[in-house]
């Protein structure tokens, strides 16, 4: 039995290798192809001027993401920003975007990163902390390519790398504002938080949220629960249900799993405060405020730096001050609540409010 399948498979691999060899000449081609792609790019320099608001030269951007472009959270936030830049700059001729989604497997992501770089993309974005080690191995081989990596603060300068940008979102800032808002909205004095894993971006957001709520109303109860996963939509939904049963009348949460919790909030008519991506299309009446990760300016700055010959070395932060974090408020919110939230925003921007996180 064992021998019978061994040979077919060997044959199959052999055939694949032969096929690959036949196809090899095709892959020999890229060098000329690359210059071809570069050449029209230069001649198109005039094109963006036609109607484009952004003054950038044509660029090819590739991004590798751990979840999907439609996750209403981490990945969608940056992908939407890329699409916006593309639109503003004058479309696909100016900004070419290639993406690989659901690259949760780091080995696959690393292959994608190298492949994009080898393919001549100018800016290759690794949109996940876990891609860092691989990125640091790949980046030295492509000294003319810019890489970007987040959530991260390390641009690799310490290891002698000069073509890596790092970026992170100070999620606790919008978390604080959302916390202020939640405390103003809550009548029961109980707020529920549906977290994924108690770490990283989610923890920053939630710590900020708790601080904001407590600062507004020291007696308020903020119940926090974690599902132990980023994608457990069903457990996130039940966590929301549990919070409601425990008396919560305002909910928030983080990561792509929260769509499950929003579904429950919608059914129970409990207001939801969002983060990362704008989740209001899913439940316009329920998602009353959002801390939006607006990567637009950060990405644009990377593009401009790249085109000015500065390939990396900058660590970016999204903050309320630099507009990287934007608060979206629904019109249905009471004025005092929005006023309190905006005051908190102003306080964080001016530095009057400092957020203590663990």
């Amino acid at each position, binding site marked *: 039995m064992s021998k019978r399948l061994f040979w077919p498979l060997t044959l199959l691999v052999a055939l694949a290798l032969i096929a690959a060899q036949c196809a090899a000449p095709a892959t020999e081609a890229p060098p000329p192809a690359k210059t071809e792609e570069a050449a029209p790019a230069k001649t198109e320099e005039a094109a963006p001027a036609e109607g484009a608001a952004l003054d950038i030269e044509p660029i090819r951007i590739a991004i590798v993401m751990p979840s999907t472009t439609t996750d209403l959270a981490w990945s969608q936030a940056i992908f939407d920003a890329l699409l916006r830049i593309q639109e503003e700059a004058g479309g696909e001729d100016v900004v070419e975007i290639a993406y690989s989604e659901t690259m949760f497997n780091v080995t696959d992501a690393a292959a994608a990163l190298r492949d994009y770089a080898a393919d001549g993309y100018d800016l290759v974005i690794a949109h996940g902390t876990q891609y860092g080690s691989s990125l640091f191995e790949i980046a030295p081989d492509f000294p003319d390519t810019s890489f970007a990596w987040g959530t991260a603060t390390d641009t690799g300068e310490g290891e002698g790398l000069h073509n890596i940008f790092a970026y992170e979102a100070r999620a606790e800032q919008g978390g604080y504002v959302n916390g202020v808002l939640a405390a103003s909205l809550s009548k029961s004095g109980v707020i529920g938080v549906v977290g994924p894993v108690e770490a990283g971006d989610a923890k920053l957001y939630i710590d900020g949220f708790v601080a904001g709520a407590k600062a507004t109303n020291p007696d308020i109860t903020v119940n926090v629960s974690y599902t132990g996963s980023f994608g457990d939509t069903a457990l996130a939904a039940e966590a929301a249900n549990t919070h409601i049963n425990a008396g919560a009348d305002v909910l928030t949460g983080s990561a792509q799993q929260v769509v499950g919790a929003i579904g429950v909030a919608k059914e129970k008519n409990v207001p939801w405060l969002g983060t990362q991506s704008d989740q209001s299309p*899913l439940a316009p009446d329920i998602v009353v405020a959002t801390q939006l990760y607006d990567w637009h300016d950060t990405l644009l700055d990377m593009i401009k730096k790249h085109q000015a010959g500065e390939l990396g070395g900058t660590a970016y932060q999204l903050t309320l001050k630099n507009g990287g974090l934007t608060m979206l408020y629904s019109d249905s919110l009471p004025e005092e609540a929005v006023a309190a939230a905006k005051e908190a925003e102003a306080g964080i921007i001016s530095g009057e409010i400092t957020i203590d996180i663990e």
Partner: protein
Amino acid sequence: MSGELSVLAIIVGIAHSGLRLATPYLYAAIGEMFAQRSGVLNLGVEGIMLMGAYSGFFVTFKTGNLLLGLLAAATVGALMGLAMAFVSVTLQAQQGISGIGLFMFGLGASSLLFKTTLGTVEGVEGFPELRFCLSSLGLNSNYCLSQIPILGEIFLRHNILVYGAFALVPIAWWVLNKTTWGLSIRAVGQNPQAADSLGVSVARVRYVTVTLGGMLAGIAGASLSISLLNIFQENMTNGQGFIAVALVYFGSWAPLGVLAGAMLFSLVNALQLWVQVLGLNIPSDVAVMLPYLLTIITLAFPFRRALQPAALTKPFERGES
């Protein structure tokens, strides 16, 4: 700490959440139990659930008709069950691996369909929570049975699919133990040669059970997408299908055992959520681990022996000894 919550309120909350959480597991595990009792291990439940969740959601989203959505989920589930039956019964393929193939197909296909037809996470109005209000009986009262302390609060605040899942348990018990069909299923799973010599068509029985199992797995998916969460997201079942398969083993291939397993797992899961909500000083990771840990520990108590169907995973061919 939310000091105002009484212990009673917490117990009610845990029980209420437990029933909700158990719903998809019950549909999927009871269906899988039938398949396994007839001798077919279908590891593809997760994939079928995803396809069921997608089709139920999509049809509901487009037509606004929940029953059509449920029907779509059941049909798609049954078709995938049929495919599994064809592969494992007629083609006698290795069941474990074909189940994994079916899972991968369901995972990929449901995500692909989601991307091409919806493109973004949307919401629907799912099956509403019933409240059993007297007014609906024409009585001039706004009292609802769901307001009955404790019992009403636990049991009478759910949507129809939750009740369906629990109703399935006695029905499954009855079918399996009191009908000729049930006898045939058990015989085919225990000793297909003997069943065959008695004139029972082994293939037909297995086709029916695996298709039925697929249909129930499809409904399990729909119970998430159009009744408990009211959204569809890629890979939203997140491993529940595999836990459902495990629960069949936990329940020793009996409906009541499956119910016990599903309730234990779900109640402990609900408990750990409450442990976190109440801010008890336990790391969240440890809390999340609890249901898994307790399931293993429970099984380690030697209160019974598992009675695995003797012909499980073994294809049947007439004339084999």
